[in-house]
């Protein structure tokens, strides 16, 4: 009895050990490819602390251009993914600071929580650049540069499309937000709501619900909001991304309402959203290029590493408004 028990435990442990070893070995070999491929004479060690990666559509198309730019510029990237958990990212930041890299690229999981990470990096003399979502204004002097979309600005652009479409008309709209508590969701909503209040107060937000970045959640939420406020009172819909706006459009169709008769805007211009703009169901969206984002995260980091700290601090992804006029344009071809 005891012998079998020991044998079993031993087999289990050997298997576990084997997994540990093979996993680390695999990781090492994948890292090794970048060595010596640099354009310059130097190879830089850079940690990229991201909150998503191959677990989300955006991250999946963000990473390859980032890696390609790093290979080209001779930067050895170590990428982490905290899955939007602030505590996880804080711990990864400690790991990064302890490893003493030449630079840290930070994509904040929760913007309000990164101050200690920045302070620690500063104390260790490691420069930090920010990608995708900027840190709070009071924390910006602890960072060298920012590149990426202006998440607040995307909300602004989407609201501007809405205001242009509506003109002076008195209209009621529905709002579908991203995942509750998520910083991109919060910023986009703030940008949209602020701009509507400032530029076209004739647009009234009748109801708001989270769509969790999901098409199905958004579809049900929009349908229920239509019931709540009465479909006849709704002349427009804003959703915080294209996936959710696709759900909103399906909800309208399921009710026999022609989406083209409503003012509908969103953010993204993705594979799902672009065709909807072309077909006229979606009136306008704001292009967010994951490849621009990933590539420039590394290019800006390289500039800082080689002493050419960019000025101004921010390199904003152009918030290109995509409407029926330019939806076929190759420069706004969807990426994810």
């Amino acid at each position, binding site marked *: *009895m*005891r*012998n*079998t*028990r*020991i044998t*079993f*435990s*031993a087999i*289990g*442990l050997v*298997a*576990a*050990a084997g*997994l*540990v*070893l093979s*996993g*680390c*070995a*695999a*990781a*090492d070999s*994948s*890292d090794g490819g970048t060595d010596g491929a640099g354009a310059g004479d130097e190879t830089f060690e850079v940690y990229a602390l991201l909150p998503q*990666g*191959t*677990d989300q559509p955006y991250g999946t198309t963000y990473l390859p251009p980032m890696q390609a730019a790093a290979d080209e510029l001779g930067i050895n990237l*170590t*990428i*982490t*993914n905290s*899955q*939007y*958990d*602030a*505590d*996880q990212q*804080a*711990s*990864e930041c*400690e*790991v990064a600071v*302890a*490893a003493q890299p030449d630079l840290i690229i930070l994509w904040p999981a*929760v*913007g*309000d*929580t990164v*101050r*200690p990470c920045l*302070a*620690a990096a500063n104390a260790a003399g490691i420069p930090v650049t920010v990608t995708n979502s900027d840190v709070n204004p009071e924390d910006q002097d602890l960072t060298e540069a920012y590149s990426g979309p202006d998440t607040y600005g995307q909300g602004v652009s989407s609201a501007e499309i809405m205001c242009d479409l509506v003109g002076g008309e008195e209209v009621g709209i529905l709002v579908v937000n991203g995942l*509750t*508590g*998520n*910083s991109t969701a*919060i910023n986009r909503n703030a940008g949209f709501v602020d701009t509507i209040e400032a530029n076209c107060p004739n647009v009234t937000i009748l109801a708001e619900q989270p769509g969790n970045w999901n098409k199905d959640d958004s579809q049900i939420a929009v349908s229920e909001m239509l019931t709540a406020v009465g479909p006849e009172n709704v002349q427009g819909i804003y959703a915080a991304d294209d996936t959710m706006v696709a759900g909103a459009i399906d909800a309208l169709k399921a009710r026999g309402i022609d989406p083209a008769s409503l003012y509908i805007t969103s953010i993204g211009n993705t594979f799902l959203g672009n065709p909807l703009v072309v077909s006229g169901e979606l009136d306008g969206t704001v292009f967010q290029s994951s490849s621009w984002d990933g590539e420039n995260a590394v290019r800006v980091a390289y500039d800082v590493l080689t002493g050419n700290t960019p000025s101004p601090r921010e390199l904003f992804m152009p918030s290109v408004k995509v409407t029926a006029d330019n939806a076929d344009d190759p420069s706004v071809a969807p990426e994810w």
Partner: protein
Amino acid sequence: MSTAEKQPQTTMHLGAARGGWFDQLKVTLARRTEGRGLALLSVVIVAAAILEPVVFTSYQVTLGRVALIGLVALGLTAVILMGELDLSVASTLAVSGVVMASIPDLWLGILAALATGLIIGAINAFFVVVVGINSFIATLGMLFALRGLAFVLSDEKPVRLTDIDAGIAFGAPLLGPITPRVLLFVLAFVALQIFLTRVKAGREFYAVGGNRQAAVDAGIPVRRRILTGFLISGFVASLAGIINTLERTAADPTAGSTVLLASFAAAIIGGVVLNGGRGSVLGTLIGAFSLGILQIALTLSGVQVDIQDIFIGVILLLAVITDPTNLRAALAGVRSSLRSRERAQTPV
């Protein structure tokens, strides 16, 4: 392979001849529950030492991660030892963080957060002890309700601390690698270890978890012990919420999404039996070290997060199916079915 596992085998040959202390050792070892945790920890340490020695040179980071995983797990252990569960720990962590950050005065905020944890523990215990519903369901309800409360109180946004500098100062090491988080973790461990092994009330936790009816018959105030257990768990979870809020300078209503599962994993790997009665906080500590070192090593090697998850899942699965008691039961099952097949064959 740990010596803890090998020793009993030798005693099978020598034990009879020598008797005395060897038998005693054998009994002690058989009674310990930390064997698997220790074995896993050894493997992880050896593998990390060979492949990612940075794990140990930057030990303050590793310690920080262990404290992050382990603190909530320690409180959870007290509840699990009594055969109860507390699924609400992660939501408790989020709510107490939000409560703390919403109050401008730092110390008042900390006190309010700790009180929140104790109140939540008392509510959990009320449902389990007074109303008499299963702790799994009661705390499942609290998991939803408290997460919702955290969103409502925070207006669905992270709440920044009023005194950000205090938060940053809190995150700095006091002495060598010892940050306040690590210090509080060690204190919580020592306090619980003493309570569960040296204090009568704490030792009774094992009796309550091992055989509830026997505990009642022996005159142990079972209800009061369960209340104590949930108070400990709620208090420790709110302590973790306070530490996280201070270190991050803000309270995130979505905080703790990975805490619940990681702390369960740490306790289980450390040999704490979910049905109660067996296990130790030492085991949980070992479990937290194994997981923490493993995670840091994988992060340092740049292993992507999905592969890390597969890894941790496989190790957890191996840990739970190689539980000696489970294996014994499984083997007994096989043997009896073989025997019955033999019996079935012979008469024909």
